[in-house]
């Protein structure tokens, strides 16, 4: 597991650029955390880095929004917030968003836990202060290691990788 403190929106942006550089399709990235921890903001930063232009609005209402990134990369931004607790996520059209060729970002994956395959990268954000967030990231050990090194080099606070 990799942990760090994101002390500002700029630090979150720097982290997003480093993470985006390590993503290759197909992959599933899940983002967990309470309301207001910055899940959508982080996905927006990731999508920007991956080549999405224009507005990236919250998909809470539409549940999913798809984009084209650099080099024909297909990107899906899914938000299961509206499914709520106890919803039958089997009713969600997963095959459209986990198509084996895209990068898929899923906020509130808890609501779809029974339907989702294991995430390639799982991100947890927790409130620390109004501006800073505690980050927890789980990925393959090699990715955690190189990402942690890059984050330290970029000056991100409290970076630690533990087996």
């Amino acid at each position: 597991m990799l942990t760090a403190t994101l002390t500002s929106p700029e630090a979150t942006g720097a982290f997003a650029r480093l993470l985006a550089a390590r993503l290759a399709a197909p992959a599933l990235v899940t983002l967990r955390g309470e309301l207001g921890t910055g899940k959508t903001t982080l996905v927006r930063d990731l999508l920007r880095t991956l080549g999405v232009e224009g507005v990236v609005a919250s998909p809470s209402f539409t549940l999913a929004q798809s984009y084209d990134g650099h080099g024909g990369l297909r990107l899906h931004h899914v938000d299961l917030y509206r499914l709520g607790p106890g919803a039958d996520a089997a009713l969600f059209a997963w095959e459209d968003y986990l198509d084996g060729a895209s990068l898929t970002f899923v906020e509130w994956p808890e609501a779809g836990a029974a339907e989702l395959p294991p995430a390639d990268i799982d991100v947890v954000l927790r409130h620390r202060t109004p501006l800073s967030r505690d980050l927890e990231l789980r990925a393959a050990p090699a990715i955690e290691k190189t990402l942690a090194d890059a984050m330290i080099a970029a000056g991100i606070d409290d970076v630690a990788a533990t087996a």
Partner: protein
Amino acid sequence: MSLLLCIETSCDDTSAAVVDTGGAGGLDGAGGPESAGGPHGAGAALIRSSIVSSQHESHAAFGGVVPEVASRRHTELLVGTVAAALADAGVAWDDLEGVAVTTGPGLIGALLVGLAAAKAIAYARRLPLTAVDHLQAHLAASYALGVTAPFVCLTASGGHTLLAVVERGVEFRVAGRTLDDAAGEAFDKGARLLGLPYPGGRELDLLAARGEPSFVAFPRSLPQGLDFSFSGLKTALLYYLREHQTEAATEALRASVAASYQEAIVDQLVGKTVRCAEQEGLRRVAVGGGVAANSRLRRRLTAACRERGLEVFIPPVALCTDNAAMVGLAARHLEPIAWPQYLGLDAYAAEPALRALRVRR
């Protein structure tokens, strides 16, 4: 007289309406048939019936809207809803001269139910079919009050927050939009943080009515220009509630926190809408979408427009929330599609009308 059967199934309400488009014309874009009497009676008289079958009970068990549940319920409710719209209007199938339907944006499965039904009815009755964009339908709702283009229209709902300059009919240019959460999402998520039941927007409005809007000074730092942002406000509410747990627990103070939060949303919506009208040199302002049901927004927008000598058009709540009558009001300004071309129509989830247009700063 030219009667249109209108169908709208973009989200979780199944709606049908009969709208009189006042003859085959009505494409001049000036805002409806000028011959039909006074400005405030003209549009309203065109709506012969409007039926909305709400699915809220079906979704309450899930704590939210589930797209596939919405699609199934549309399938179950649509035939009865259409029959009720015809009966309510006192109209027979033979009286219809066209069908109009929402093709997007919205939940794709839900839209497809309405579109398939509309195609089937058009085919069976040998009628032309008009495809209507959901956002254009919201803009057109104000034509029921007799607004004339050009005008500024704020459309705010759970999925959209759009400041549009309506130039002619339902042709519009985007002046501002949300950069993160929609206004309705800000209401619903704020309500959830305040511990109010789903759907929270209405509950928050009711609670806020008993509170003091200046109780908490929530941040008003906004994006430049006419775009909106609500995500930071939601986080500010969260931190306020965390830091004042005991205080916020008393009912009166909770009402004041709700009122202050609502005020921050409404300030932004009203401020930018009025500024847009002034920048564009337009004298008429309209509003649509589910958030336009918010009582504080209706009052504040009315006051702000009166203060500046702007004419304001706020449709009744039933025309602001999703309904099929507004689909007919929009269809008056669109070209009907003949058989067999309409068979190729498809539904769309995202907003091509917005993506195609450059956002003006």
